[in-house]
C-alpha cells in the first residue's frame, strides 16, 4: 500500500521498535545518555551539554522485581519502569531526571529508586507546575530549569555554551517540524500512523542529529505520494487514540492490520511531545523552554486538564474525520482515569463512539484488548455487520 521499504522508514521503525537496544549501541559508540522520565522535560538543555536525552521507554515484559517494593495498586507504568531499572536494564544511562510534582505513583519513586537500583545512581527531579498559567507558573519553571542546568553542568563536566544551546534548539525545532509533517501525511492517509509513532519514539530516544536527517529524508520520500486520502482508505474505520506514553508499536500496527486507520492521537509521548506548532525561539532558549511548557497541551497531571484536552480531542476528531476514539489509560494511572470520565462525557455529547481499554505497558491483557478493539472497529466500519451473518443458503 505504501512504499515503506525505503531506508529512512526501515531505520526509523527499527529504532522505534527497540529504543533500549539502540540506546545501548549509542553508549557503545561513546555517547552519554541522560534518562528523562517524562516527555515534558526540555530536552534541548542536556543535549547542548553533550548528553543524549533518552526519554525512558519501558520494555514490554511483565514486572518481576518491582513487586518486591511496589504494591499492586501502583501505576502499571511506574511498576514497569522500576522493574526495568531493578533488573539493570537502564544501567547504560548516566543519570535520570524525573518530572516532579506530577502523580502520586511517581512522587516517591526517586527515593525508592535510590534504595533499590544500583545504576543510574545520579537522580534529579525537575518540578513542573500543576496550574499551567500565569507568571507564577513561569517563575517556577524558570527557577527549576536554572537549578537543573546547574545539575546538568556538573554531570556533563562543562558549562553551558549559549551557541551550542541555540544549535540544539534549532535541531529540536527541525525534528518537531518533521514529526508534524509526517503526522499530517498520516492523517491524510498517505502514511501509516504507526510510522509517526515509531518516529516520535526514536525522536525522544536516539541520537538527535541522525534522527533529524532520517525524519527529513522520510518526509522527502513520502512527499510525492498522492495527496488526499486514497480510495481504499475511505472504507477504513478511522480512530483517534488518547492515552499515556503508548510506546509499544504493536497496538497501532494491529489496528492498521485490521482494516482501520489511526488519524490522530492525544498520547503523552506521541503528538503531545511535538505539539504545539510554535517552536522555540533560539535567541533566548532558556526563557523559551519555560514558555514552551506553558504553550503545550495540558498534561493529565495538571489541574483542569480534562476540559482543555476534550476540546483538543474534538479538534483532532474533526481534522482526521475520525469515527471513533480509543481511550487507553494505563492500569493504575489516576490522572488519566480521572480525565477519561470528562473525555468520555464530551464524546457522548458530540455523538462520537468511544471505547476505554485499560492497558498495561507490556500489554499483558492483549487478547482481551484486541477482542474489544475488534468489536469496536467492526462497529465503526462502513460495512460493519454488528449482528453476524444470518443468510441461510
Amino acid at each position, binding site marked *: 500500500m505504501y512504499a515503506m521499504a525505503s531506508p529512512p522508514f526501515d531505520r526509523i521503525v527499527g529504532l522505534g521498535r527497540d529504543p533500549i537496544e539502540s540506546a545501548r549501541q549509542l553508549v557503545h559508540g561513546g555517547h552519554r545518555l541522560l534518562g528523562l522520565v517524562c516527555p515534558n522535560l526540555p530536552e534541548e538543555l542536556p543535549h547542548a551539554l553533550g548528553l543524549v536525552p533518552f526519554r525512558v521507554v519501558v520494555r514490554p515484559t511483565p514486572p518481576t522485581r518491582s513487586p518486591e517494593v511496589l*504494591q499492586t495498586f501502583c501505576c502499571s507504568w511506574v511498576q514497569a519502569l522500576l522493574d526495568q531499572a531493578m533488573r539493570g536494564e537502564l544501567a547504560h544511562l548516566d543519570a535520570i531526571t524525573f518530572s516532579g*510534582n506530577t502523580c*502520586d505513583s511517581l*512522587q516517591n519513586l526517586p*527515593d*525508592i529508586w535510590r534504595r533499590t537500583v544500583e545504576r543510574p545512581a545520579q537522580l534529579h527531579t525537575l518540578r513542573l507546575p*500543576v496550574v499551567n498559567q500565569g507568571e507564577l507558573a513561569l517563575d517556577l519553571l524558570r527557577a*527549576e530549569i536554572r537549578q537543573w542546568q546547574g545539575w546538568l553542568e556538573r554531570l556533563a563536566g562543562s558549562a553551558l555554551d549559549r551557541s551550542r544551546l541555540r544549535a540544539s534548539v534549532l535541531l529540536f525545532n527541525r525534528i518537531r517540524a518533521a514529526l508534524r509533517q509526517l503526522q499530517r501525511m498520516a492523517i491524510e492517509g498517505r502514511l501509516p500512523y504507526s510510522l509517526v509513532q515509531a518516529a516520535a519514539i526514536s525522536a525522544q530516544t536516539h541520537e538527535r542529529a541522525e534522527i533529524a536527517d532520517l525524519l527529513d529524508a522520510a518526509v522527502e520520500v513520502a512527499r510525492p505520494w498522492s495527496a488526499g486520502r486514497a480510495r481504499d482508505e475511505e472504507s477504513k474505520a478511522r480512530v483517534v487514540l488518547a492515552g499515556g506514553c503508548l510506546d509499544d508499536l504493536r497496538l497501532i500496527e494491529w489496528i492498521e492490520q485490521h482494516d482501520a486507520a489511526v488519524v490522530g492521537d492525544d498520547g503523552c509521548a506521541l503528538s503531545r511531545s511535538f505539539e504545539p506548532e510554535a517552536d522555540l525561539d533560539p535567541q533566548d532558549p532558556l526563557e523559551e523552554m519555560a514558555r514552551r511548557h506553558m504553550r503545550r497541551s495540558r498534561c493529565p497531571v495538571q489541574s483542569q486538564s480534562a476540559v482543555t484536552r476534550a476540546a483538543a480531542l474534538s479538534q483532532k476528531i474533526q481534522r482526521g474525520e475520525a469515527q471513533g476514539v480509543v481511550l487507553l489509560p494505563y492500569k493504575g494511572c489516576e490522572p488519566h*482515569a480521572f480525565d477519561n470520565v470528562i473525555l468520555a462525557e464530551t464524546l457522548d455529547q458530540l455523538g462520537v463512539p468511544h471505547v476505554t481499554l485499560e492497558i498495561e505497558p507490556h500489554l499483558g491483557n492483549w487478547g482481551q484488548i484486541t477482542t474489544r478493539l475488534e468489536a469496536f472497529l467492526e462497529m465503526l466500519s462502513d460495512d460493519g455487520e454488528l449482528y453476524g451473518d444470518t443468510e441461510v443458503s
Partner: protein
Amino acid sequence: MLARLTRRRSAPSDGEQPLYRPLGSTGPLKTLMKRYYLVTKAAPRVGLKTAWLTSGAPVELPLSMGIIPQYPENYGALCGARRVSVELCQAAEARGYSPDLCSYARNDLGSIFAPDRAPLKGLSRPDVLIACNNICGTVTKWWEHLAYHLKVPLFMLDTPFTEGERPPHLIDYATRQVEAMIPFLERHTGRRFSRRRFARVAERSSETIRLWNDCLDLCTAHPSPLNSADRFLVMAPVVTIRGSRSALGFYRTLKREVVQRIERGEGAILREERTRLLWDNIAIWYDIFGLSARFAGTGAVFPVDTYTSAWTGIIDGREKRDPARGVARVYSDIYLNRGIDSRLQIMERMIRRFDLDGFVLHSNRSCKPYSLGQQVIRRELSQRTGKPGLVIEADMVDSRHYDSRRVPSQVAAFLEVLQ
C-alpha cells in the same frame, strides 16, 4: 457518627470486660461536631458563604473572612465509619470513575451523584473550592472534577513535593499563590479580607495546634493516655475548624483530661499496657474500633501515629508580619509533602521518643503517596531501630478491599512475635 462509634467502642462483646477507658472529651466533641455540621448545612439558607477545602488547605484564610469551611475528606471518614462508603463509591463508579481511584474521591463524588444515599444528604453546595496538593496529587484531579460537576470556581494551591531541603523558590511560589487566594475569595464570595482578623484567626489556629501537639506529646507517658482510635476521633476539630474559638476550647478540655489521666496513671485501654506501637497511614474507618480491639485485647496500644501528627505546623512569631509566607511554609512542609528520608527520620524519632516496640503500616490502596514506599520504609525502619513492622493491606473507606479474615490473623501472628 460519634455517638454510634462511642457506643460501638465501649460495648463489650460476649460478656467480656470493656477494653477502652471512655474519654470524657467525646461529649464536648460530639456537641461541637454536631454544631459544625448543623452550621454547614444551614449556611446557604441563611446567606453564609461556604468553601470546600482539602484537609491540607489553609483554612485560616476563609475562616477569617467568615466563610464556612467544609471537608469532603472528613465527610468521607464519617461515611466510612457509618459504613455507607461502598454504596457511594459505587454511585461514582456508575458514572465512569474507576474503582482504582481514591475512595475519598469516589465517596465524595458519589454523594453528589446520589445525595439520597449520603449521610446528611451530602455536604452543602459550596460557593468556592480550595484545594492544596500538599497531601496528594489526587486532589488536583478530584477537585477539578468537583469544579466541573458543581460548576463552582476552584483555587488550586500548588505546593510542590520535595525530597530533601525545600529550595527558597518553592516557598516564594507558594507564598505568591496564598496572596492570590485572597482576591479570589473576595471576588467569589463578596467577603472582605482583613489582615487584623486573619492575624487573630492565625493566632488561635497556632494556639489550637500547640494544644493538639501537647496532647500528642503527652502520649509518651506509660501507659499511653490516648490510643490511635481516640486520636482519630478527636482530631476532627483540628482538621476542620482550627482557628475557631470552639476548636481552641475543645483542645483545652482534651488536654486537661489527658493530663489528668497521666496523673492518675490511667491508660487508654483497660488492660495492662504490654506493647506500644506506631500506626502509619489513614485510619481504616469502617473497622476503626474492631481493629483497635484486636490489639487492645492483648495489651497493645498505639501511643503515636503519623496521620494525626500531620496537623502540627505552627506559624511562628517572625512570620506573623508576613502571614502569607508563614502559611506557605507551614502548608508546604507537611508530612506527606516530603520524601521518604524525612518520613523515616520522623518515624524513627517517634519510635525512640514514644518508647515503642514495633510499628504497623496500613498499605492503603486509596492513598498512594502515603503507601507507595512502605516496603522500603519497613525494611529500613527495622534496620535502624531493631523493631519489627507489620504491613496491613486495606482501604480507608472502601471495605471491599479489606480481608476481614486475613488481617486479624496477621495481627495475631505479629503480636505473638512481639509479646
